[in-house]
């Protein structure tokens, strides 16, 4: 009986690491930072999490995780629900279909991949928000949001790679 209860719980907890980290990013972007410069725009942090784990642990970041975290993200942001779910599914789906491409690529390639997919995901949000809910954002705010998100990728990705080493190494 080597596979005791503790071991199974341990396994389950490790399985939930990527989803929990994406949820933490969702919460991080909703905290009032009281920064005049940030007023109005906050980087779309959860997209970084979705992309990172889809690239490095596609077995743990499955479509249902992308969908569920997207739902929570929409609620926290107070926007129409379903839009982030779809945007996250776009990132997850496109990354998952290219696992062979991403395998063993340098950081720069992965970062560029994120820049592309984040643009695609924000475009999906823009189109749906406009078509279904006739909400139009300030283009400048959207561009700033995109640039901030892409610029923050290395930081979040570095943190996640540390955590991945720490928690998910022996799997």
């Amino acid at each position, binding site marked *: 009986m080597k596979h005791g209860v503790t071991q199974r719980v341990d396994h389950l907890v490790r399985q939930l690491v990527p989803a929990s980290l994406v949820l933490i990013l969702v*919460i*991080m*972007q*909703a*905290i*009032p*930072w*009281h*920064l*005049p410069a*940030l*007023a*109005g*725009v*906050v980087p*779309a942090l959860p997209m970084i999490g979705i992309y990172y784990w889809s690239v490095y642990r596609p077995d743990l970041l*499955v*479509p*249902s995780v*992308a*969908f569920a975290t*997207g*739902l*929570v993200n929409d*609620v*926290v*942001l*107070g*926007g*129409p*629900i*379903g*839009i982030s*779910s*779809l945007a996250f*599914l776009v990132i997850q*789906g496109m990354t998952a279909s290219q696992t062979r491409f991403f395998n063993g690529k340098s950081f720069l390639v992965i970062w560029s991949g994120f820049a592309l997919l984040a643009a695609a995901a924000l475009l999906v*949000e823009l189109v*749906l*928000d406009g078509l*279904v*809910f006739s*909400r*139009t*954002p*300030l283009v400048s*705010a*959207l561009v700033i*949001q995109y640039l901030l998100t892409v610029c923050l990728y290395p930081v979040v990705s570095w943190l996640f790679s540390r955590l991945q080493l720490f928690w998910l190494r022996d799997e």
Partner: protein
Amino acid sequence: MKQHPGMVGRLATLRLLAQRFAFLALVLASFAMMLLGKADTIVVERLRVLIDDGLSPVLQVLSRPASAVHSVVDAVHDLASLRAENVRLAEENARLMHWQTVARELDNENKALRSQLNYAPDPDSAFITARVFGDTGEAFGRSMLISAGTREGVRKGQAVIAGENLVGRIVEVGDRTARILLLTDPSSNIPVVIEGTRAKAILAGDNSDRPRLNLLLSANSNAAVGSRVVTSGHGGAFPPGMPVGVIASIQDGVARVEPFVHRYQLEYVTVVDYGLPGVLPSDQSDSGK
């Protein structure tokens, strides 16, 4: 045993198919959610409130360090401008003392006149002060989460103020949390008047920091840069005379208002219940339940 590799291969294809199917189903579910949300069903609102209430303890804890950093930065700023600020405050105090005397006289006069006219006073208002723990700055909408809900007596449509100035109104109420729709959100339309002119207008948010002022009559001549804008009380959502902002610019016939309150400054807000029926259609459905 020879069948083994074939079985594995078939299982893998099956699994792949199942994953594809799950992905497609979830994409469809996202669209379904959007349509459900567009129809404004109670289910969606329940779901929102449930998630907001569930996340609020985490958000509240995490927002503490952020506001601690904010107050340290503020303290340093204050130290630097202490002297100048002191002089300014002394001047302002002298001016306000004068106004206080005037206000007292006017208050007495008002009371006397009201008693002569048998005037029906405005309903008394109740205040609920709450902490802002969620500031969701995104490119599409402007709202905030506060730490008070139905339990504290917050209702949909109530006005939210900081100091004396209007911040927005309540659009979503959970058990312990509520969401404020800020003046700058595209779905925020507030009936206002330009102070001193009685020119009526609608203050419409459009995601920029300065909402548009849509004048109801072609009374453009009345709007001048620097004029104060206050709530008109029309529609019954807000009491009249609540300060909103000043006209900051008029370009091509479009006046824009700089609100008195900036979102990044907000740490505590006050929800005000004036006992007036709100303009939101959902208010009736809420009270009818």
